[in-house]
């Protein structure tokens, strides 16, 4: 019988059939919508990947520049490393995370900002103070690039997850839900057809039986009437009503 494979457990009625057909339509619309969403996200994803690639190379260069300026500082002022590390108290360079909505997904973006005043203005890095300042600026610029990169990277990771989930759902609908509903519809239709056939067969059988009984009665009646005319007795018209057919109990 058709309906091989998993199907939903429902009673094979016409109402259930319409309900199933509606569900099938819903599932098909949902599937195409999700597929489109997945495609849009994947497109966005590839853009981001390209940007990440560029940004990483840019970062490589910027960091080089910053390293050089630091080397200059070391050359002219000596090693300020220890001082810098010890005077680190509250971060001035901070990032703010804001979310952007991209085709239904909340993607974060980092925004760099300066919080508070420049603590190193007063650090007794007197001689070569200009060098230090320049180095500071190059590193601040480097940070900007890094923050941008970080934004792209987080967006990348999140988008990756979302795309995986959406694709999973698309596949689930395509390979599990829709076939299941189609199987159910086929099964219901076959059950209804069989019921119709049974009904038809039953009716035919009943008609045949009635026909057989009627034929017998006709023959019996003819036999009686034939005998009566031979006796020259008036035929009893009412005798055919002697045999009372049971209406209910056959």
């Amino acid at each position, binding site marked *: 019988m058709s309906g091989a494979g998993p199907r939903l457990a429902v009673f094979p009625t016409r109402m259930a059939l319409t309900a199933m057909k509606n569900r099938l339509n819903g599932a098909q619309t949902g599937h195409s919508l999700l597929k489109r969403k997945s495609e849009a996200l994947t497109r966005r994803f590839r853009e981001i990947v390209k940007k990440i690639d560029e940004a990483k190379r840019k970062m490589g260069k910027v960091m080089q520049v910053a390293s050089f300026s630091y080397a200059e500082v070391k050359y002219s002022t000596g090693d300020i490393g220890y001082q810098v590390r010890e005077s680190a108290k*509250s971060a001035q360079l901070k990032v703010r995370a804001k979310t952007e909505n991209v085709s239904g997904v909340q993607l974060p973006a980092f925004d760099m900002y300066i919080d508070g005043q420049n603590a190193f203005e007063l650090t007794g890095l007197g001689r070569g103070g200009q060098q230090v300042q320049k180095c500071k600026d190059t590193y601040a610029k480097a940070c900007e690039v890094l923050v941008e990169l970080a934004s792209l990277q987080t967006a990348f990771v999140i988008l990756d997850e979302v795309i995986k989930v959406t694709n999973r759902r698309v596949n689930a609908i395509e390979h599990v839900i829709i076939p299941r509903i189609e199987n159910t519809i086929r099964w219901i239709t076959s059950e209804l057809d069989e019921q119709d056939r049974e009904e038809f067969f039953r009716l035919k059988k009943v008609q045949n039986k009635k026909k057989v009984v009627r034929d017998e009665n006709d023959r019996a009646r003819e036999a009686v009437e034939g005998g009566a005319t031979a006796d020259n007795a008036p035929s009893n018209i009412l005798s055919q009503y002697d045999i009372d057919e049971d209406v209910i109990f056959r």
Partner: protein
Amino acid sequence: MAGKDRSLIAVIGDEDSVTGLLLAGVGHIDNKQRSNFLVVDAKTPVEKIEQTFADFTKRKDIAIILITQAVADDIRPMIDDHSEAFPTVLEIPSKDHPYDPAKDSVLKRIQRLFGEA
């Protein structure tokens, strides 16, 4: 979803890189005396690096972790495992190690995806 309190940039790297970034102003010591940077030199044990990295990832106020590629190579498995969106792990070059895209965890992930796609 995005931690609104995440605002710090953490640094793990060699002395020069860390100092440079601290000069820019990313260094922070909170009221529990925890810092958001770690200087790694030849004597630093790998466990300490791993521990610091794990701590930084667990903290809720760190948005970005900058790590030099040289140090990243020491704890490569941990970085490969880190797949959450926050905090973002960014590999930066250092004076002696120019940026090598082949080793970057994130780029490796991209390669894997486009190897299949």
